[in-house]
């Protein structure tokens, strides 16, 4: 199929439709607004529904309702808006509803700025709202990868009955790249879901979408069930790219758009004779711990260098995975500033 030139946000919207999403609820915020603008007309091509909600809070609760009713529902926002959605995401996680959430991160804290940032890493990967829960979190680095992830995101969400988050940044959302789209999938009929409130049930068959468990033992049982699901994610859903790591003395690690800059740095460093590689997690939860174990235990690897657009949120997972077996150096930019290839090259040369 011929490639099309697409803006990241719009490509994600198209991939959602192709992946069977038929309901979108969202509120405008830079730098992801093009996603909702795109779906505000595109969803009607496929008999879907688009609502610009009165707030991000309302949007995520519309997702809760639609997902509970058995539909494929998407919401999208950027950092401050994602903060507002956290209560709803927690409810969705506990009620075991499938949905997809896009966060095109901007810099913070507070209103921050609209330039690229990765400062919502901990919020995304450790739960984000109240209570012990996780999402399946992807950190794509190209528009094609974001499209491929979005295309299958609803299948994953439904397989595990969990919220899936696609974590990008303003760079991914705003840049344009050639992209190949997969064929259109239909949304599965809500009546095929044995847990969905489709309105046809009563008596012992009736269905309840709920996250309230007043009795401690019942609530603990729910938590145990959720944790078992997260263990399954750790076992089955890890995705990670290992780039030129085999013979590398230095392994850079980064995710998302930052990893693209790092790839250029790896090439530049190898031209200078410094054998460098890159570990790029594609799933941020589950984290590719085993990949780090492998290189941390290898005699070849001398050092890791973590590069991120936040102050060590991502590096905490790297440190936990390297387990002190090798030194981990660190370089970051903050507040919407993005590092250059040269900055990364200099950092590696400095610690080499």
């Amino acid at each position: 199929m011929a490639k099309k030139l697409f803006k990241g946000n719009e490509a994600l919207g198209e991939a959602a439709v192709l992946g069977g999403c038929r309901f979108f609820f969202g509120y405008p915020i830079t730098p992801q607004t093009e996603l909702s603008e795109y779906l505000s007309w595109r969803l009607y091509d496929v008999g879907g529904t688009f609502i610009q909600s009165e707030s991000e809070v309302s949007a995520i609760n519309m997702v809760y309702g639609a997902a509970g009713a058995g539909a494929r529902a998407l919401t999208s926002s950027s950092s401050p808006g994602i903060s507002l959605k956290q209560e709803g995401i927690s409810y969705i996680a506990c009620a075991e509803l499938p949905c997809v959430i896009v966060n095109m991160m901007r810099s913070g804290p507070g209103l921050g700025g609209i330039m690229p940032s990765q400062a919502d890493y901990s919020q995304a990967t450790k739960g984000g709202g109240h209570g012990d829960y996780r999402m399946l979190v992807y950190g794509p680095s190209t528009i094609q990868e974001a499209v491929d992830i979005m295309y299958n995101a609803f299948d994953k969400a439904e397989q595990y009955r969990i919220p899936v988050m696609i974590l990008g940044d303003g760079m991914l959302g705003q840049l344009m790249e050639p992209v190949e789209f997969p064929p259109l999938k239909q949304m599965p009929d809500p009546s095929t879901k044995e847990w969905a409130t489709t309105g046809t049930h009563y008596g012992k068959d009736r269905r309840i979408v709920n996250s309230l468990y007043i009795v401690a033992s019942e609530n603990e049982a729910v938590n145990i069930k959720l944790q078992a699901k997260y263990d399954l994610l750790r076992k089955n859903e890890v995705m990670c790219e290992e780039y030129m790591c085999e013979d590398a003395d230095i392994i850079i690690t980064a995710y998302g758009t930052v990893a693209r800059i790092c790839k250029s740095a790896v090439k530049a460093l190898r031209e200078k004779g410094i054998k460098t590689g890159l570990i790029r997690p594609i799933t941020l939860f589950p984290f590719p711990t085993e990949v780090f174990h492998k290189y941390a235990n290898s005699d070849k690897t001398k050092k890791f260098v973590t590069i991120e657009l936040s102050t060590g949120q991502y590096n905490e997972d790297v440190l936990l995975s390297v387990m002190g077996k090798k030194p981990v150096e660190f370089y970051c930019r903050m507040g919407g500033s993005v590092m250059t290839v040269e900055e990364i090259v200099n950092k590696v040369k400095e610690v080499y």
Partner: protein
Amino acid sequence: MATYHKSNMLTDTPLSFCPGCTHGIAHKLIAEVLQELGQQGNVIGVAPVGCSVFAYKFFNCDMQEAAHGRAPAVATGIKRVHPDKVVFSYQGDGDLASIGLAEIMHAGLRGENITVVFINNAIYGMTGGQMAPTSLIGQKTTTSPFGRTVERQGNPIRMCEMLASQDGPAYLERVMLTDYANVLKAKRAIKKAFEYQIAGKGFSMVECLSTCPTNWHMTPVQACQHIKDNMTKIYPLGVFKDVGGAK
């Protein structure tokens, strides 16, 4: 000869409400109306946070339990997926008129084809009697121990009037659950609200002035009299919006 049957739209789970509270009456009316309209097997309800948080245990239909105040947004999501099903939310005054004010207003403005049953008892019951957005001036609660004043706590909110001032809602009525005649009126209002939804006329809401003897520190009889003597002065009964046969 059987003279009375519990509605088949209620489960056998015992209600969790205090003695003298009118939540039970509201539950019964909704269930009876849905049964009379032949809707068993065609309904999805949304429970709120508050005293009626367990509504999902009591209504004999598919139910979703919503976050505090968000029931109209949840109901919107459900209704858009299943436009042919009857969708209702059941909400108290803290849920609907305070934390969920944006959700109820915008559901009304969109003319969402859902029915809302709004229980206004002018207090937060579940958490033990705190001031509600609908608490009356002078009303003593655990967070307005000297009595609510305009200077300290602001004014009570009138939801039917506020929604009626906007285009979108199809049917808005305020009733009180104090005595047999008024309970019958309330039932007619709830029935009309659901009939409007079934006819596709759009957003309908019935506000029920309700008692909270426990947190009002009154007997059930005193509480009903309090509604008649005091609450109806701030919250007059009546129909605030009725689009009638027109869509």
